[in-house]
C-alpha cells in the first residue's frame, strides 16, 4: 500500500495528457492523409530519432515520463539516445551497437511474444 501512496498523481496526469496528444497527432495523420499505418509508424519512429538526436525529446520525457516514452516517438528517441551514448563511449563501433542495444528489450519481446501468440492463437477467417 506504500506504493499507492508513492504515486505522483500530477505526473500521471501529465503522462496521460501528453501521451493522448501524441496519439491525436497520429489520428489526424490517419484521417487527413491517406497514409497506411505502416507509414505512420515509420514516420513516428524516424521523427523520434531526429527529435531525440537534437535533444528536444528529452525535455518531453522529463515533463511527461511514460507519456513520452511509451509512444513510438519514444522508441525512436531511445534508439538515438543509445547510439549517441555508445558512440561517445566507444566511437564508430558504438554508433552501430548503441541504437539496437538500447531498444533490444522491446524488439526481442515483440518477436518472442509474437511467436508465442502465433503458436496459441488460431488465424481468423476474414468475413467479407
Amino acid at each position, binding site marked *: 500500500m506504500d*506504493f499507492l501512496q508513492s504515486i505522483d498523481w500530477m505526473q500521471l496526469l501529465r503522462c496521460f495528457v501528453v501521451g493522448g496528444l501524441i496519439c491525436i497527432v497520429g489520428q489526424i495523420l490517419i484521417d487527413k492523409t491517406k497514409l497506411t499505418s505502416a507509414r505512420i509508424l515509420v514516420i513516428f519512429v524516424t521523427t523520434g*530519432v531526429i527529435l531525440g538526436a537534437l535533444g528536444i525529446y528529452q525535455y518531453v520525457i522529463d515533463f511527461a515520463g511514460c507519456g513520452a516514452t511509451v509512444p513510438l516517438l519514444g522508441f525512436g528517441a531511445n534508439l538515438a539516445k543509445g547510439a549517441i551514448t555508445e558512440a561517445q563511449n566507444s566511437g564508430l563501433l558504438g554508433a552501430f551497437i548503441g541504437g539496437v542495444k538500447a531498444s533490444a528489450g522491446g524488439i526481442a*519481446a515483440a518477436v518472442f511474444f509474437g511467436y508465442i501468440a502465433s503458436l496459441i492463437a488460431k488465424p481468423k477467417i476474414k468475413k467479407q
Partner: protein
Amino acid sequence: MKSIDTKQEYLDYVDQKSPNSPILKNCFNAFWVGGLICSIGQIIFDFCKYKGLDTTSSSTIVSIILIGIAAFLTGLNIFNKIGKFAGAGSLVPITGFANSIVSPAIEYKSEGYVMGVGGKMFTVAGPVLVFGISASVIVGIIATFFV
C-alpha cells in the same frame, strides 16, 4: 453526370462520395485510449522505480510488459477491436508496434512456421526497424565525429 477525365477529378469525386470520418470523435477516442495506455506504462514504471530499479531498466520493463499485453490481446482478437475503436490511440504507443508484429504472425500461420510466421512477422515492423535503426546509426556516426 459529368465525365471523370483526370486523376484530380476522380479524387474529388471519391472525397465527395466517401462518408466523412468523424474526426473529432476519432481524436477524442485516440486521446483517451492513448493516454490510458501511457498511464498504465507510467504506473508500471513507478512500481519498478519503487522496487529500486534504475530509469533505463524501468523503461525497458515497461516496453516489455506493454508489448506482452498487446501480443496476448492480439492473440485473443481483442486488440483489433480496441484498434477499430481507438485508431491511433492504440497504434501510436508501443502496443501498435507489438500488434504489427503479432497480427501477421498469426494470420500467416497456415503458411508454416518458418516462412509464414517467421517471415511475415516483419511485414509492417520491418520498415519501422529499417528506418529507425538506420537513422540511429546515422545519428551515431554524426555523434562520433562532431560531438
